[in-house]
């Protein structure tokens, strides 16, 4: 059984009550949203897998060329304070597609389905609107690449562990769908790419560095180490153990190998950028540029050497923060960067419903981002909570601070994100920050209190004790 809303609404009813022009002014009186917003626009959700926040050339990353993401950024709004719900694939995707936390969806680890009674976006749109719901690429809740995704018509599956080739099939399938479709119904299309997740395969075939750089001519091109390559040794044991399990310690990496890994990671991102470019080009070629909302994000980030980490799972920014763009040329502001509002992957579900003009399920943790795009001074509680793999950790982010706690671990972390955005100085034991710590623990408890967590969830009660 899926959750029901009080007032389901169909497309015809919606069109009667919507469609009016909306005009919003900024505090300076600048017009930011003028064109009449068509009701029920097409919506394309583009997902990448394991993409670090700072990997868009137009957003200032000088080690990469991402013409497609640059174009998308220039056509829309880039959010720089964007977090995934959980820095692991399946759990994060369960958050994106349900608007609920991974402790609620029953997907605290990879390989689990979203639990019965919680609808995914495809099911919800199918039930409450006329949208065609189309899916291409990685799913992972629970099957990685499958035709059997509830609520969606799957036009291509993809290939496990091989985004370098399966992503091309995924974007080609979207292109073929867009060019061949004859329906006049609006579409909600998910283009879900695996890259740059192939960095996991790369790490396994480049664990042991050679004496010399494999491609000598790259030496001058390698990006530097990140500023926060070193880390505060007063870390929770869970974080330390995770780092030791990864490949670099096994391979005893030197600085050159770390930098070569970073260079290689950027190339992985460029690969997926090319596939995103094909989707954007197809929207243009099929005259859907101005009637389609494009939402882009990633399921989680990548270590990239920050805190000497690779891959994901930690609650540091490199794993938790993700790029996020919303674009709707002619109807939403263009070339904007929102650096102040905190958002999460759970916000995608209500945002899509908002654009589609349908109500939300009764229980919803995410918030529609539309007001942040259309209103000059929207009400927005700048606090987000994220979970970690196996329900083992929590992160509470407020506008200035970030609090991290792991179950069964005495050491918590508190960072001043304004003074120390690289999270290198853990303030949790500093007497000056007792009240800040208390405030964040209380926020966490307040958040936990409202959750309807899955039965038999490990560490379900761990967070209350943190108070």
């Amino acid at each position, binding site marked *: 059984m899926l959750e029901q809303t009080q007032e389901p609404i169909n497309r015809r009813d919606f069109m009667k009550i919507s469609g009016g022009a909306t005009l919003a002014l900024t505090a300076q009186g600048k017009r930011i949203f003028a064109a009449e917003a068509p009701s029920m626009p097409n919506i394309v959700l583009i997902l990448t897998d394991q993409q670090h926040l700072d990997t868009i050339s137009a957003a200032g990353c000088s080690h990469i*060329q991402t013409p497609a993401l640059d174009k998308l950024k220039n056509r829309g709004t880039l959010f720089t304070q964007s977090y995934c719900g959980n820095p692991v694939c399946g759990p994060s995707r369960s958050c994106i597609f349900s608007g609920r936390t991974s402790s609620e969806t029953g997907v605290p680890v990879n390989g689990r389905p979203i639990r019965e009674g919680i609808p995914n976006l495809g099911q919800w749109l*199918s039930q409450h609107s006329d949208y065609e719901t189309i899916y291409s690429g990685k799913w992972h809740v629970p*099957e*990685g*690449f*499958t*035709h*059997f*995704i*509830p609520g969606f*018509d*799957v*036009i*291509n*599956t*993809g*290939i*496990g*562990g*091989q985004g*370098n*080739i*399966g992503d*091309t*099939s995924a974007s*080609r*399938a979207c*292109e*073929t*769908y867009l*060019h*061949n479709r004859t329906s006049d119904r609006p579409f909600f299309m998910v283009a879900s790419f695996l890259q740059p997740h*192939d960095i*996991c*395969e*790369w*790490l*396994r*075939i*480049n*664990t042991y560095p050679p004496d010399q750089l*494999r*491609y000598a*001519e*790259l030496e001058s091109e390698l990006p530097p180490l990140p500023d926060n390559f070193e880390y505060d040794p007063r870390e929770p044991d869970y974080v330390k153990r995770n780092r030791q399990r990864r*490949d670099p310690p*096994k*391979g005893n990496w030197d600085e050159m190998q770390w930098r070569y890994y970073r260079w*290689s990671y950027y*190339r*992985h991102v*460029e*690969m997926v*950028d*090319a*596939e995103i470019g*094909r989707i954007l*080009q197809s929207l243009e*070629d*099929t005259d859907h540029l101005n009637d389609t909302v494009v939402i882009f994000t990633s399921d989680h980030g990548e270590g990239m050497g920050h805190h000497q980490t690779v891959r994901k799972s930690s609650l540091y920014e490199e794993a938790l923060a993700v790029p996020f763009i919303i674009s709707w040329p002619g109807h939403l502001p263009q070339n904007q960067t929102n650096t102040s509002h905190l958002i999460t992957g759970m916000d995608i579900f209500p945002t899509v419903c908002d654009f589609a003009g349908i109500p939300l399920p009764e229980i919803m943790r995410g918030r529609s981002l539309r007001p942040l795009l259309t209103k000059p001074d929207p009400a927005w509680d700048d606090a987000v909570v994220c979970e970690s793999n196996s329900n083992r950790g929590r992160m509470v982010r407020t506008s200035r601070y970030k609090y991290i706690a792991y179950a069964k671990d005495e050491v918590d972390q508190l960072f001043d994100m304004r003074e120390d955005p690289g999270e290198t100085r853990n303030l949790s034991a500093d007497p000056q920050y007792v009240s800040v710590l208390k405030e964040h623990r209380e926020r966490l408890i307040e958040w936990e209190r409202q959750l309807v967590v899955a039965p038999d969830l490990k560490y379900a009660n761990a967070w209350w004790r943190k108070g």
Partner: protein
Amino acid sequence: MAKKRTIVGYPLVPDLLGDMNLLQGFPETPADFDPNGQWINTYRIMTCHGYREDGNEDIGLLRLSKSPDTDDTFRLQVDREIVNDEHRLHKYTAEIICRKDLSASPVSWRLSNQFTAPNQSDPQTLEETGKANGTTAEITINNRTRIASGANPITADWCLFEAVQRLPFESSTSLVVDILEGLSVHKYNQRLSYRGLYTRANNSLQWFHQIGHGVLPYEYWLDDHHRLQMVTTGARTYILSDDAEARLTHQKTRETRAFKRRQKKYAGGDRDA
């Protein structure tokens, strides 16, 4: 208890693949093989998940067939099939007219892009055409044309598989081009250069590599007849093979079985699983 797996640890090269039982030598090159003449090279497309024991799969096939055209051009036929999970088949068929220049730069082409579901019903097809000259290419789909333009001469990834066979084995050899990957997406500033002679216990091959925007480094291995034997890029390899078709059929069968298992598991159909 989970099976113990050993990470590969090192980039994929012919001897490592041999050591992992993923490569049992290359087909013998006919004595009269001429890279400038007419030939067919069929490659199995093998992917590695970074473990020695499992996850190394043949997921497709690439066949390149070169035939004469005019004094200045030749024809390159491309047939590529990829078996996506649960046997969603993605096929490319392309015919490219190439210049007889160093990078086999395309003059014009037709490409068909086809998706077939596991039950073989209702294949979805998209046709495109293109032409290129110098640093600019035009790609047309359904009468809509877009331009790809860059700073370097444009060729295609498949064309480089042909071109590398005509390059001299000399340290001074290098090309700088842009590519249209799959005759479609534009990747800039690809630098292809001769790397040297690769000699290991079982192989003596000529070695090139290519570095550029949007790709992991490509490495090309050729025999002394200038026939391209193997290409690697990251975890993907193209291996010249006599049994590529049979391997592809095996993979299709395997993925069809996976599809049927899931169909049974999620009985009720695609949308309502």
